[in-house]
Structure formats: structure tokens, C-alpha cells
């Protein structure tokens, strides 16, 4: 299973480092087994816990058959998920992803519920909308209410009253981004500069200034996993060395290698592999060689799933899809693939055509709070004066609660003034994303994926001016979109 160590792929690592790592893994494996025995011995009988427990138990029985490999105790490669591909179209695939708390259909979009809540929506509404996995931000939750308290209260599912699946990030990226957000919301170049000053990444971990008292704090891979183990999400993310894709040179290479070194520390620190799935993150900037080393390194660790990181950070679209295409091609067929930070509907369609399964982004909810609705034609700015007496729904083809009940005129009078404006638009935008996910899934299963992609592109680009990067990506994905492209496509990106 851990045959990776014989492969000699770690050209950049020294031999003794390598041995130490093997040692550490063995130790961790022993610890993990002990932990599980302890946990099994001292299972609590509390009533609430029973409900959650029985629910979890049911889900886990669904997953377990795939976990017992010839009756042997597996310490690495243990996972708490099952991933079954239900249909394919070339590289695109539709799958059923069974997690401890929910059976999900992919491709899927995960809304971001930073502090254990999607702003303005209740968990009942999120179920109604069809959300399957919600992303929680480790950084925010660790600061408040703290992972210890969440653990004490029975984990994040119970804390936020969300019965379905959860994913937490490692906290590293948030640390960098949040601090930057305070410096400047809009100025991207300032963000890059301050990234270097405010969040210092060393071999030990990510050092950052505490938002509470400004003191330097250190987040190590071990600590990130410990926190995420306490929070208890279905999927947890390895701590990676995040570098903006627009940066080039040795820093990118360093980040990629460090991400690979940290994955072993993350695996070793992971105490709940039978309840939580640790995903590794492919880094390597826009460099195909670095991405390739990173993918191979991670795949050798036989993780339950893989994320493609470091994208959606301002790189050009052609570079973006090429990295996705390269990584999805190199990642195993039987594991979920998650493109981090991607949330524009067009990007999700392209990535799904290239074989990605999961996405997350604040875009649908954030743009809702700024008064913008997602519609098949692109976006609809409800703040625009033309909406003031428009008695049509946001999207006449949408079946969501908001479109069934409200006119553009009414939402126009709410947006950016009343909380209800954000609530209704967030509801609609998430419904749109979930409907997009459902459409991707069903069109792949039913063998009509190219037709779906074409009708999607036709609505978004009625003049046939589909961007060249989309045409290029679809070409690689083997999806014929000539029917929705103008005869002479413009060379504009």
C-alpha cells in the first residue's frame, strides 16, 4: 500500500528525512489504532448523541464495505467515504459520493459557511435549496467559538444544526486572506505584497499576526489537523503552502515541496481517519512540471480525495483550465477531485467537463449581498434603476422560492438596504448553483452532457462569442460546442 517509498520519486528529499518520516508515520499509525480502540471503549450514551450516532452509524455501514480490504487493518488509505462513478462523458463524470453525514451527487458546489452559518439562511433553507456539503472555515471557527468548544458541544454538525456533510479548510489560506482583507479589499497588488509581510510561511508552519492582539501565532500542519479533528467535518483539508499563482520562480517550487512534506505531517496527525476524510492539495503554481511532481506525490499517499489548490487567484483563464486539465488527468479515477475556490458557473461547467467533481466559493453569496443575482444569461444587477418597475421574477425559468414569489421591482427596493435583500438573493443564487450541479450530474448520467453544455453556453453567450479559453478547454475535454460558437470566433479572451 505504501509502496511509494520504494519508488524513489522524492528526488528533492534527503534520505534521512525520508526515514524519519516513515518512522513518524508508523508512530502515528499505532497512535491512531489506539485512539480508535479508546474511542470504541468509551462511547457515550447521551440521547442527542444517540440520534447523531445512529445516523452516522447508518451512513458508515453504507461506506464500510469499501473500507475492509481483505480483512486487514489499514492504517493509511483508511477513508470515510465511498466514491462511485455513475456516468461519464469523456473526461466528465457524475458520481455518488457517500460521506459519513450525507450521500452526495457530484459534480457539486459547496457554499461557504464561514462561521458555522451561511449568512442570512437557515439550515432548513439550505436543505430545501439542496445543499449537500457546506464549507466551514477552520480559522474563524478556531478563533470563535474555538474548536475545543465545538468539540465539547458535539462537533460542528450539531453546533450549527446541519445534518448533512461538512468540509473544513486547513485555516492557512484564510489566515493569509483574512489578514489581507483587512489591509485592502480591492487592491490586489497590495494584497500580494502584504501576504509576504503578514503571513510568514516557514517549514514549521504558517506564522501570522493574531487578529486579537497582533502577536505572532503559528499554525503547524499538526495543529491544523488537530483543530479540524475537533471540529469534526466529513472532509478535512491538509495544510498547504499557499502561493498566489501569479507569483513565479523558486517560491512556487518551495511551496509545492513544502506542501508535500506537510502532507505526511498531516496524515500522521490525523486521529479520526474512519470518520473524517483528509484531502491532499495539489500545489505547483502554473508550472506543469511542479504540478506533476505534486500530484504524483499526493497520489502515492493514497488519500481519500484530492484538491487542486492555488487557483482562482487572478491567473489568466487559459492557465487556469490547463492546470485543472493536467491535474484531473493525473488524479485517480476512483477518488473525488475538488477544485478549490472556484465558483463562477462558467468555470464550474468547464472544470466538470475536464473531470472535476467538487467546488467551493463565496461568490454566489457574496455577490448576492452586493445585489447581484445569478441567471442563465450571466448576472442580473438588482441595484440597477431599470429593475425599479420590472415586474418579472429574477429568472422566469427558475423554480426557487424567491423567483416563485418576488418581482425584480420588490427585490430592487430591498437590495443593499435591508437584510431581506441579501437573504432572498443568497437563497436564489445558491439555488442556481445547486440547480447547475444537479443539471451537470443528470446530463452526464443521461448521456446528454454536450447538449447541456451547449445550451448553457448559448444562454450565456447568445451571440456565439464563447471565450476562446472555453473553446480550448472544451476541445481538450472532447465536448463539441461548435453549435453554440459563432462561425468566426473572436480572438478575445
Amino acid at each position: 500500500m505504501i509502496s511509494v517509498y520504494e519508488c524513489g520519486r522524492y528526488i528533492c528529499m534527503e534520505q534521512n528525512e525520508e526515514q524519519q518520516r516513515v518512522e513518524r508515520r508508523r508512530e502515528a499509525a499505532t497512535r491512531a489504532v489506539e485512539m480508535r480502540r479508546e474511542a470504541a471503549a468509551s462511547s457515550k450514551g447521551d440521547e442527542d448523541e444517540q440520534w447523531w450516532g445512529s445516523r452516522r452509524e447508518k451512513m458508515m455501514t453504507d461506506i464500510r464495505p469499501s473500507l475492509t480490504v481483505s480483512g486487514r487493518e489499514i492504517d493509511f488509505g483508511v477513508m470515510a467515504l465511498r466514491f462511485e462513478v455513475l456516468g461519464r462523458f469523456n473526461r466528465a463524470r457524475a458520481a455518488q459520493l457517500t460521506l459519513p453525514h450525507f450521500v452526495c451527487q457530484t459534480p457539486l458546489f459547496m457554499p461557504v459557511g464561514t462561521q458555522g452559518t451561511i449568512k442570512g439562511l437557515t439550515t432548513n433553507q439550505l436543505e430545501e435549496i439542496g445543499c449537500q456539503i457546506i464549507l466551514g472555515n477552520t480559522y474563524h471557527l478556531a478563533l470563535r467559538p474555538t474548536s475545543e468548544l465545538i468539540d465539547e458541544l458535539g462537533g460542528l454538525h450539531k453546533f450549527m444544526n446541519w445534518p448533512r456533510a461538512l468540509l473544513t479548510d486547513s485555516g492557512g489560506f484564510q489566515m493569509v486572506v483574512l489578514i489581507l482583507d483587512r489591509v485592502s479589499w480591492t487592491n490586489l497588488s497590495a494584497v500580494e505584497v502584504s501576504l509576504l509581510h503578514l503571513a510568514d510561511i516557514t517549514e514549521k508552519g504558517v506564522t501570522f499576526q493574531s487578529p486579537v492582539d497582533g502577536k505572532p501565532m503559528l499554525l503547524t500542519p499538526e495543529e491544523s489537523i488537530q483543530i479540524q479533528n475537533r471540529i469534526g467535518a466529513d472532509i478535512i483539508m491538509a495544510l498547504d503552502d499557499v502561493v498566489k499563482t501569479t507569483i513565479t520562480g523558486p517560491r512556487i517550487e518551495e511551496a509545492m515541496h513544502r506542501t508535500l512534506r506537510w502532507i505526511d505531517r498531516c496524515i500522521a496527525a490525523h486521529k479520526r481517519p474512519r470518520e473524517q476524510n483528509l484531502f491532499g492539495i495539489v500545489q505547483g503554481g502554473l508550472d506543469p512540471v511542479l504540478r506533476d511532481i505534486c500530484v504524483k506525490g499526493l497520489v502515492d499517499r493514497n488519500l481519500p480525495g484530492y484538491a487542486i489548490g492555488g487557483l482562482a487567484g487572478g491567473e489568466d483563464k487559459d492557465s487556469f483550465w490547463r492546470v485543472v486539465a493536467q491535474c484531473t488527468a493525473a488524479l485517480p479515477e476512483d477518488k473525488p477531485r475538488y477544485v478549490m475556490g472556484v465558483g463562477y458557473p462558467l468555470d464550474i461547467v468547464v472544470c466538470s467537463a475536464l473531470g472535476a467533481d467538487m467546488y467551493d466559493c463565496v461568490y454566489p453569496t457574496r455577490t448576492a449581498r452586493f445585489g447581484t443575482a445569478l441567471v442563465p444569461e450571466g448576472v442580473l444587477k438588482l441595484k440597477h434603476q431599470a429593475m425599479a418597475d420590472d415586474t418579472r421574477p429574477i429568472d422566469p425559468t427558475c423554480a426557487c422560492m424567491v423567483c416563485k414569489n418576488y418581482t425584480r421591482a420588490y427585490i430592487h427596493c430591498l437590495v443593499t438596504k435591508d437584510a431581506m435583500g441579501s437573504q432572498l438573493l443568497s437563497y436564489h443564487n445558491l439555488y442556481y448553483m445547486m440547480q447547475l450541479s444537479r443539471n451537470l450530474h443528470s446530463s452526464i448520467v443521461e448521456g446528454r452532457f454536450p447538449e447541456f453544455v451547449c445550451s448553457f453556453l448559448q444562454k450565456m453567450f447568445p451571440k456565439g462569442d464563447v471565450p476562446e479559453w472555453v473553446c480550448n478547454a472544451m476541445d481538450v475535454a472532447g465536448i463539441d460546442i461548435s453549435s453554440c460558437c459563432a462561425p468566426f470566433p473572436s480572438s478575445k479572451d
Partner: protein
Amino acid sequence: MKFAVTALSGGRARAGVLHLGSSSGSCPNPIETPALLLSTRKGLPNFISPDLLPSLPSPDSHLLQFSPLHFLEGPSPKTISSIGGLHQMLGLHEYGLVAVARDSVQSLPECDSTNKIGASFETSSGRRLVKPVEYMEMISSMRPNLWSTLADEVPAWVSDKRNKTSAGGAVFGSIVGGSNVEERQQCAQEVAKRNVSGYWIGGFGLGESMDERPPLLNAVTVSHFSLNMEASILPLFDR
């Protein structure tokens, strides 16, 4: 609108049933009184979208109070009319909507600026003088189940205007008079003479003490109204 007293306390308290069921079919279920009016912002209860409203106790939570003045910045009465009124615009067909110009948060009466032309309110879009004819235009477009007349110290002129309109919905005459018992009594007597379906007892929550309220309410409710009329004492019921 139909209102029937179902039980009397021996004292002055009463329990009743309010049937709002209008021709448009909104609020089909009867509402038991005493009833609380849910306060709203632009017609929707704060932070509770219509899909969540049924999770509140029913039918007790089916009466919503709104201020037409929340829509001063739009949608225009014309647009609201073409949408089909407020029930349609809010997607709240099962609910009773009660129009009261004043709310206690965003649309406060500004008596110093109120004059014979109209009533003045401090709103989120600044101080606005609302003429009765404008108010009636809003009421006509919104088509609430109940609406109270535009109120000031001298409410009589509003009732005249009211008679000229065909806004639909039941009209509640407004009883004001500040902290002056005689003014209140006189106002109640005058309004009671008019053809209204109920009474809105306003002018509270504007700095009077809690001790002052009982005698003021007593002065108004003692005998001027027939037994089967609904009295809505808003600042007490909408908090």
C-alpha cells in the same frame, strides 16, 4: 371584515374572532383576538422570509402590520398596482396585512412639521410630508386587509378623504390626542360618528409614561365604540 366578540370578562376585556377573508382571497383563516401584529420592514417580518413564516405559531402569526411609507422610495404605487397589490408582491396570500403609516423604527411621526396639508414622518429617506391623497394612492395600490387613516391631532379631515376613495379593505379610524384625556375623548367621539370598521388607537410610545397609559386608554375605550368593533392599540400590541 367581520368581527365578533366571543367572550367577555365581566370587566372590560373581551375575546373575539376577526374574519378578514377579502374578495381577493387573502387571509382565509379567522384570527382570534386579542392578537399580536407582527412588525415588518417593507412588508416582510424582519429576517423571516415567507418560506419560514409557517414555522411561527399559526394562525396567531397571520396578522402583519406594515407601513406604506416604507415604499416611499419604491416600488411606485403604479408598479405595486401592476404587480397586483401587496399580498402578491410579498407572496403572502395567507396573511392579513394591516397598513399603519407610523411604525416605531423607520417611520416616526414628526408632529412639529405636520400641517394641514399632510402628516410629517421621519423616514429612512429623510423627513417626508405625506398628503392624504398620496397616502390613499398608496393604500389603493397596496390593497391591505385593514388600513388606518392618516393620523394627526385633528383626524377628522382624513375621514372625509377616506369616504371619497374606493380603496377596499376595512378602514380603522385613528384615535389620537396625546396625553390629554379630554382630547382623546373628543377624538374618539368624533371618529366613532364616522363609518369606520374599527379603531386604531395611536399616539402612544412617544414619551408618555407607562402610568399615563391606562387612563388614556380608558378614556378612549369606555363607551364610544359599539361592542362589535375591533380596537387595535398599536404601540401596545406591535412590540
